[in-house]
Structure formats: C-alpha cells, structure tokens
C-alpha cells in the first residue's frame, strides 16, 4: 500500500502547477506576482543558467572529451537539455505501424532552456482555419483575444524582429534585429528574384537590455546552452527565478506528478499526488486550483491517469477527446554547398543563437494541392568547429578543383586535405521547412495498458500517421529548397528526398511542437477545455501548456503557449477576485 505522505497537511495552496516550462513558468510568474500562494511541482532538477554548476556556454569543444558529440545529450554535449528522446526508466510506446518521438527535458524551465527562441505569433487566419479551408476546426477564440497577451510578453520577455505589415504574420513590439550574416544577405538577394520573402527572424533574445535583471546579448550564438546573462528567454531565468523572488512560490523539484486528486462529491480538483523521485515516496500537495503544464503529452497522460469512479475515462474527459488531435509541425530540410563562398575571409560570424532571417509562408493554398503553409528556417555561416566537423569530405572534395585548378580524387590525406577543409569552411547553407499539419481525430495518445515507468506510472502510447496533406506539403518544401539552391549557384547535397521517404518529411514528434491533446472549444462534447483553458468538467482545473491548441499554424508553438498561459492566469485571478474559484 502507498504511504501517502502529505507534504504539509496544513498548507492548501491557492494554485498548484505541474511543470515549470513555458506554460507552467508563465502561470507561476503571473499568479505569484498577483499575490497568490503557488506551489510548482517539477519532475526534474533545479537549473539556473547563471550558476557555474550548470554552465556550458562559451566552453571550448576540447573541454569535452567527446568534443561536444551527442552521446548523452541529443543535441550535443553542451546543449542545456537534461533529457531527450529517450529517458532511462521513463519509456513511451507507439501502436504498430505508427511512429512518434517524444522529447522531454527534466529540469527547471523544461525545454525552454535550450529551445530555438523562434517566437512567432499566430496570425488571424491561424485561429480560423476551418472557416478558410473547411478542414479541422476553428478555435473558439481569435487573434484579437490573444493579441494583448502577445503584446504583453513581447515587452515583458523581449523579442527582436521587424514590423512588416503582413496580414498573417502580425507585427509585434520588437527590439532591433541583428544584421544579416553573409549567407543570409545572399539568400535575401536571391530569394527576392524568386518572389520568396526573406525577412528578419523573430527570436526572444535581447539585442538591447530591457531591465536590470537581464543582460543584453553578446552574440555567442549559443542560446541552446542557455544564456548566463539571461539575455535569451528561458522559463528558468525569466519566469521561475523571478517568481521565486516574490516569496509566494514553493518550488518542489524531483516531484513527478502521478495524478490529479478530486473530491468524489464535488468533482473538484483538491490537489496532486506525486512521486518524490529522490526518496521514491508518494506525496501529496493540496490546492484550491490546479494547473496542468507538464507539456501537451504529459498533460494528457496526467488526465487519463487521474481516473476515479466519478471520472472513469480519466479526468475532464467526458468528451473522450483527451489525447486526440495530437499534432506536431511538419519538417523537411536540405543542405547545399555554395562555391561562391569557398575560401572566404575569416571574421567572427557567430551572431545570435539562431538564424537572423527567415521566410514566412508566402503562397496561397487555394492555388496549391495541399491546404496549409510552412515557413523556412535557414542555417549557415562560419560556426564553431566541434564534433562532426569535416566528416564526409570524401563525398565533396572530388567535385571542386583546388584554388590552383587542380582536380583531385575523392578522399585523400595530408597537407592538401587540410587545404580542402579550409576551403569548404563556411560554404554550406541549410534550409528547414516547418509547416502546419491538419489535426486529426485519429492521431492520438492514450495510456498503454501494459507498461509503466520506473515510478509505476502508466505510460503513454502514441498512434500518429501523416496524411497526404502533410506529405504534399513536404514535396513542395523540397522543390522550393532546390529552387533556392539553384538560384544561389549552389549544389544540393545528397539525393533529393522522394515519395519513398515522404519527401524527407520528419517523423511525427521530431520537430518537437506537439500540441492539441486537450483542445479548447465551445462544445463540451468535442473539446476538453473552454476558451479560457478551463476544463468543461472540472471548473478549478486549467491547462497552460500546448494541450489546448486547436491547431498550430506554421508558427512554432511557444510564443502562443506563453500568451495563452498569461491569459489563463489573468482569468484565474479575475475569477478568484469574483469568488468563483
């Protein structure tokens, strides 16, 4: 039998939040600022980007015995993600014939310590796709409902970009964008000829200081390592640590939530039971309101695992929609070598930790054979050589004569090989399309009846397949990439991905924008939450991660997670004031 230890039986928090990532961090920040007594349960360990214990920023590749290889961290030894696609003792499964990859970070701030900082507002059309193309569903809210919160986080968190007056790429409150790198200038010039807009990117990085708690960017290009100056957005540095300073936050790390507890008579949430993963004991915290923000997948898992006689299908799941409609961005990519960049002059081209320009969706789907758009992210430049550098030169050096016009055989060794590495350095570009999928009832996650994790918590089983909509979109991406490469006088690397590989369409989950597992809507029969991210079935239960998304546009999800979480927090504060919670 479990020994349910009450952490502090006398304490009933105003709000208990599960998870400290984008969604949980924002809710904790807003609610503690408003004076609520908040408890955050975080499954992972503490993390502060400024604490030398954790710092990987500006370390040299040779400080790592593996020179930064991805042996234990999926995105390399210096990446600030404690977790990855697979976590020891915390499995997930898929139904046969389907695929899903689930990236999790177990740490204060979740996946926001190392995310790409690409911070795109949804546009007006992104909330109303069904009205436009008849597929999927409209959100119960529109751009105007969320705009004030986008404005608020633009100012509070900080973001650079440029106001372009584009209908579905709304303007924001932007800091100045960094100047383009060389290949980015070349791309802009070339894409112009092709009619492909290429504009300053929008990243939550401070090109200017905005307050005294956070520094300005010093252009090390390493936001994925989390910024010790707090010059980029991480939930840890920008939301959770300030929330702790209010004195209103109790943070419990190593606290793996098992289920949401409810009162059998009222059906209201009363708290959360969790596993203290250090002592491996069961504990409980009590709260008047519970917010799930453990990421879209985990939120579905928690709801489905919170079964009781009153909620036999799982909590807040009278619709049966929990876990349904899970959707990830589409992704396809291509790289190229650009001879115009051979033997380039050296200078520090690190820039910010991400691209300085991107291509927003520019075409009209009515004239295409797929319903939804994509944007393009670009890579390139004279990056820091680390593990993987130089790999595969035998596939390249035969194709291009040396500076003195000497043709060489593929491969080789010696001083002339060293010349090749120098010659090709910084002469590559990469392109990655990120597109909108059509959410599908038949793509879902559920509880695997046969498998538990090391804490004894039943795990998720995913069932996800791409449809023709996404595959045709990936084909279009590949055609566009070749067009761009050709126009630049570059040569695409590898064979063009074809139908056999779904045109290089990444497997579901790989783009790490999974959303939609507890979607909002006006009809309790077809949605889990109302338009305030409040459960239809349980009025003191809210969701603040990407689970409420009805669809995701071709915009990376996080800026909208943050805006919605701020909006939901504001609603909770109002409802508390009115005595409704």
């Amino acid at each position, binding site marked *: 039998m479990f020994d349910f230890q009450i952490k502090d039986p006398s304490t009933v928090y105003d709000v208990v939040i599960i998870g400290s990532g984008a969604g949980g961090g924002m809710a904790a920040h807003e609610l503690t600022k408003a004076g609520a007594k908040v408890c955050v349960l975080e499954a992972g360990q503490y993390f502060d980007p400024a604490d030398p214990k954790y710092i990987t920023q500006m370390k040299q590749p040779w400080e790592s015995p593996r020179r930064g290889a*991805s042996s234990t961290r999926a995105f390399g030894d210096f990446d600030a993600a404690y977790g990855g696609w697979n976590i020891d003792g915390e499995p997930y499964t898929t139904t046969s014939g389907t695929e899903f990859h689930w990236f999790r970070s177990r740490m204060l701030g979740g996946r926001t310590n190392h995310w790409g900082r690409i911070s795109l507002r949804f546009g007006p059309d992104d909330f109303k796709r069904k009205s436009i193309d008849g597929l999927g569903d409209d959100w119960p809210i529109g751009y105007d409902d969320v705009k004030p919160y986008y404005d608020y986080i633009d100012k509070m968190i900080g973001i650079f970009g440029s106001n372009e007056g584009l209908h579905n790429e709304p303007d924001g409150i932007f800091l100045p964008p960094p100047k383009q790198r060389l290949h980015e200038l070349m791309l802009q010039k070339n894409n112009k000829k092709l009619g492909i807009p290429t504009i300053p990117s929008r990243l939550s990085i401070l090109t200017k200081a905005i307050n005294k708690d956070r520094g300005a960017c010093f252009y090390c290009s390493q936001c994925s390592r989390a910024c010790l100056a707090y010059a980029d957005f991480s939930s840890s540095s920008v939301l959770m640590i300030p929330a702790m300073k209010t004195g209103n936050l109790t943070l419990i790390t190593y606290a793996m939530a098992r289920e949401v507890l409810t009162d059998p008579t009222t059906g209201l949430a009363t708290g959360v039971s969790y596993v203290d993963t250090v002592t491996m004991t069961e504990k409980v915290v009590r709260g008047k309101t519970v917010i799930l923000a453990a990421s879209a997948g985990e939120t579905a898992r928690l709801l489905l695992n919170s079964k009781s006689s009153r909620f036999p299908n799982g909590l807040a799941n009278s619709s049966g929609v929990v876990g349904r409609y899970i959707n990830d961005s589409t*992704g396809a990519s291509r790289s190229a070598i650009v001879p115009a960049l051979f033997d380039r002059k050296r*200078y520090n081209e690190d820039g910010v930790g991400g691209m300085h320009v991107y291509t927003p969706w520019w075409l009209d789907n009515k004239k295409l054979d797929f319903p939804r758009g994509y944007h393009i992210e670009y890579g390139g430049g*004279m990056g820091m050589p680390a*593990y993987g550098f130089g790999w595969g030169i035998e596939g390249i050096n035969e194709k291009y004569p040396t500076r003195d016009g000497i043709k060489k055989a593929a491969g080789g*060794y010696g001083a002339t090989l060293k010349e090749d590495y120098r010659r090709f350095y910084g002469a590559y570009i*990469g392109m990655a399309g990120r597109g909108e999928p059509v959410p599908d009832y038949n793509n879902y996650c559920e509880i695997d009846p046969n498998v538990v994790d090391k804490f004894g918590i039943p795990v998720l089983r995913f069932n996800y397949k791409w449809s023709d909509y996404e595959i045709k979109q990936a084909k279009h991406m590949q055609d566009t990439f070749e067009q761009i490469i050709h126009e630049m006088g570059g040569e695409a690397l590898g064979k063009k991905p074809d139908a056999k590989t779904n045109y290089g369409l990444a497997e579901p989950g790989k783009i790490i924008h999974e959303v939609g597992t507890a979607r909002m809507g006006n009809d309790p029969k077809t949605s889990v939450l109302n338009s305030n991210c409040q459960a239809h079935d349980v009025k003191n239960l809210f969701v603040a991660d990407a689970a409420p998304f009805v669809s995701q546009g071709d915009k990376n999800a996080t800026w909208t997670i943050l805006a919605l979480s701020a909006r939901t927090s504001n609603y909770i504060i109002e409802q508390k004031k009115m005595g409704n919670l």
Partner: protein
Amino acid sequence: MKKRDFLKNIGLSSLGMAVMSTDALAGEMLDGPKPKPKVKAVSPTGNMPKLNYGRTKDEAERDAKLMAEKFLTEHELKTITVLSDIIIPADKFSGSASQAGVTGFIEFIVKDKPEFKTPMRGGLRWLDSTSIRLFGKDFVSITPKQQIEIVDEIAYPNKVKPEFSQGVNFFSLMRNLTATGFYSSEIGHKDMGYVGNRPNNWEGVPENVLKEFGLSYS
C-alpha cells in the same frame, strides 16, 4: 562498418554552420535518437581530468567510468598516432593531428560511441595484416615510404582496387575522426581561423567582404 551514403555520416556541425536554429536542428539530428546507456555508479579511479562544463550527476559518473575503461591497446594507439599524422600532418599553418591530441580523442570516442569499437579494432588488424602480407612487418614497423604505399591504396574511395575495399572504409573512418578531433581542438580552431565563441558586438559582415560579394545593408 556498412558503407553508407556519406551524407548520413554528416552531423550538422560538420557543415561548419554558424547556425542551424536548434529548432531547425530538432528534426535533423542525423544520428538520431540514442538509447541512454545504462550506467552503474562508479568511483573515479586514477587521475581523471576534472570535467568542468556543467555535467549532470549521471553524466559525470558515465564519463568517469569511460575514462577508467581501457579499450584500445598501446600498439593500437601507436598505429592511430602514425595514421592520423599522415592524414593531418603539420604544415606551415598548424601542427599535426597528434600534436592536437587526436590520439586521446579517438581513444575516448570509441568507448563513448561503442559502434566505433569493432570498425576501429578490426580496421587496425586489417591494416597490420595487410602490412605483414606486403612488407613482412606490422604497420608501425615498416618504413614511412611503405606506409604511404598502403595508404595510397585505401585513401581514395573511388579508385580502390577490390582487394583493398575494406581498407577504404576503415581509412574514411580514420580520416573523419582525425579531422573532427583536429579541428575541434585549440590548434584546429586557430588553423581554421575560427575567431568566435567569445563576447563581442555583432555589427554585420565586414565592409571589405560585403564589397567582395557586391552586397550591402541598405
């Protein structure tokens, strides 16, 4: 090792890109998800270098265990040193692979990525047996001229004679590991002219470079 399309072997950093937004990277890590190896806690033995770059407890334990492990023999390491210096010798710009610590890097990485163990050990055996067949002695004991004769047979994948084909795959692996180890070292960064990884104020591409490419910011 199975002969694979070279592209599959390219990690993105091999393209030497300053940026691939990590978001873009998300879908592209070409070596894919890796099961986290199970590790038991071990107490570090010997004089292990102290790793000081934000390791988690699990990682520190795994690293200590790897460093305590002995996989490649002294003879194998000696052969690797000779080969890597043939691949990356000193020239007027920089030092050689072994001066940049490539031997130690390879020694570690084959333990860290066990998929390299058999190709490396087997490849080195192949090299020695070929050397004995041709010259009567193992690779490190033959003359530099004889060493180059063998290397010339396996350094050019598109020109290889059938009887040397296994050697080509081994040599490509050695070339790739040597280059990666060399250019990710301090000597390698200097050689490449990489001047980043330090606080600075990015003010755009230098004027003379813009001019060279006929580009401008206005």
